[in-house]
């Protein structure tokens, strides 16, 4: 309905009208006084074997979208079809068995690894819970996983604190890989790393994708990283999708004024390229009371009267590029 992309590709994950509204409790009775509309009516499709990135600034709902798909926070409404089955309609136990196909890598590798468990225990636990490898073959499998992510077999009994940041992230990746997942959600997976280490991990993610035919949902605020790793890119602002397109189209001809401002705001490491910069006024409004109409109209340099009242729908610029803006025909 919404995605008319390449017909030869098979959709792996289809998100439809996903909403995540967190209640705000207040008053002495603890009643719900309002909602944070973190994700508000988001729809998109991820095709098998591709990398779709979600970009946007703090509070745009990119991480919340990832968490809602995995039901780490129960979404308010909408549906998430994974290989045609609605994840949101599943029972807890059905969902648990589905989770081996949908893995996640978090930003902070130190916070997401148990400091009291060795690498063997961390990865062994993952294998034991999903019970995909018999107990007596697990150690062998763990060594194999470590070699996939560029760690040595003799590091198997070490603890997280004995590793550097980049190596810890490799353990996080090995844990996700242990399940032989189809989809991996990378939530700011390289954001905490220094650039030289970030490059190592990005290269690893790319080569693993080829080797194991993985599909990535890559959540990041860093557009340089996104350009490097993605096939398609989705830009979010205040809980809404403002633009979604294949990488080339998005970076070469961004349509939404927000995407244009976002791209122009990034300092380019090149002194000879002095670019025209669009400086946005003010801050991102609160998601509790987002602006009426187009949510970007309060900061948009091009906003007209219509933008204040009417919510723009995602419309096709061409078959692989959709944008939600009244001013883009």
């Amino acid at each position, binding site marked *: 309905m919404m995605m008319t992309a390449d017909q030869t590709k098979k959709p792996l994950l289809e998100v439809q009208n996903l909403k995540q509204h967190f209640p705000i409790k207040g008053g002495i009775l603890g009643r719900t006084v309002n909602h944070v509309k973190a994700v508000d009516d988001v729809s998109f499709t991820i095709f098998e074997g591709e990398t779709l990135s979600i970009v946007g600034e*703090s509070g745009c709902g990119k991480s919340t979208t990832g968490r809602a798909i995995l039901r780490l926070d129960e979404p308010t409404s909408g549906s998430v079809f994974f290989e045609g089955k609605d994840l949101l309609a599943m029972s807890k136990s059905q969902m648990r068995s589905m989770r081996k196909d949908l893995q996640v890598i978090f930003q902070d590798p130190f916070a997401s690894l148990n400091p009291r468990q060795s690498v063997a225990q961390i990865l062994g636990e993952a294998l034991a819970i999903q019970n995909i490898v018999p107990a007596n073959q697990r150690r062998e499998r763990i060594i194999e996983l470590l070699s996939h992510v560029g760690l040595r077999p003799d590091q198997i009994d070490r603890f997280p604190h004995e590793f550097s940041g980049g*190596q810890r992230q490799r353990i996080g990746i090995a844990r996700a890989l242990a399940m032989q997942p189809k989809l991996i959600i990378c939530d700011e997976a390289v954001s905490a790393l220094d*650039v*030289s280490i970030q490059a190592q991990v990005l*290269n690893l993610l790319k080569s693993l994708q080829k080797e194991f035919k993985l599909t990535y949902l890559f959540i990041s*605020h860093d557009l340089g*990283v996104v350009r490097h790793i993605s096939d398609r890119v989705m830009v979010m602002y205040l809980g809404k999708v403002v633009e979604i397109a294949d990488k080339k189209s998005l970076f070469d001809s961004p349509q939404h004024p927000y995407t244009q401002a976002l791209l122009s705001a990034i*300092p380019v490491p090149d002194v000879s390229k002095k670019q025209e910069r669009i400086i*946005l006024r003010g801050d991102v409004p609160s998601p509790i009371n987002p602006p009426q109409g187009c949510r970007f109209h309060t900061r948009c340099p091009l906003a007209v009267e219509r933008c204040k009242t009417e919510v723009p729908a995602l419309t096709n610029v061409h078959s692989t590029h959709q944008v939600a803006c009244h001013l883009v025909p």
Partner: protein
Amino acid sequence: MPGQQEKILDVRNLQTHFFTDDGVSKAVDGVDFSLNKGETLGLVGESGCGKSITSLSILRLIASPPGKIVGGEILFKGQDLIAKSEAEMRKIRGNEISMIFQEPMTSLNPVYTVGEQIAEVLRLHQNMGRKEAWEKAVDMLRLVGIPSPEKRATQEPHELSGGMRQRVMIAMALACRPEILIADEPTTALDVTIQAQILELMKKLQAEMGMSIIMITHDLGVVAETCDRVAVMYAGKVVEYTTAKNLFENPKHPYTIGLMNSLPRLDEDVEELVAIKGNVPSPFNMPTGCRFAPRCPHATELCHSKLPELLTSDDGSKVRCWMYTPEWDGASKTATEMGV
């Protein structure tokens, strides 16, 4: 370019070590650079390279023990800051040299209004009265582009957004019109659209006030955007020191080249990033030769055994690498003969 301009800060062979139970950490171990009036110098490097410790050393804000400046000179307008007493330093900090930090929420006092916090700086350093200092504080908030500054001055830090807080920090740092502003990752915690606002603001204020800026950052984009000259640091040492133009057009040190290649670019596509292999060495156990040698694709026997000096090359940039010395030809030959 250097030479004709007025040198306001000259850091020579600065060494700041930390004496801990686990041994001596040589966090800063031989850093040289100078800062001219009105220019912006970038201090670039990855986590643990010593860039923040360098800036804290300049302001003598190193916690001692365990830290200690064990060698070198920090000449501010010709006077060595290392030799100054604590009372003298207090007059310099915030007044002649001031600093802004990465996380404005932790550097602002949560229980005072932002107006009071800016006014305090003025009362302390400029002996202003309460009323005058408050009015000047409101002026400073207006100068850094905060809308309705009279109202904002009466608010506490938690009532402001991240970008606004960083503007308050800048207002506070610039209240006494310092000659040097040290900005330690001033935009790292901010979103890019807000980062663009803050960088623009810093540029505008620098043009108006004529101060010099030391910009500490890990982001080469920010460097290209703001800096006149750059010192690239690796494992406690400056490895390359040159103009921003030279650095981006003709990077010399293998580490600098490695950094540029590992950066995913917004303006071009590459299939695979050229990553720097391995990890940064531990500050407790630095390699004996060039500190980058264990990760360097060109390293020879010479690099592993002997530390190169920071030497001036043909185009005036300084680089700490054997590849740019006469010894290199011999060394690389021996290496080839040895089958390295």
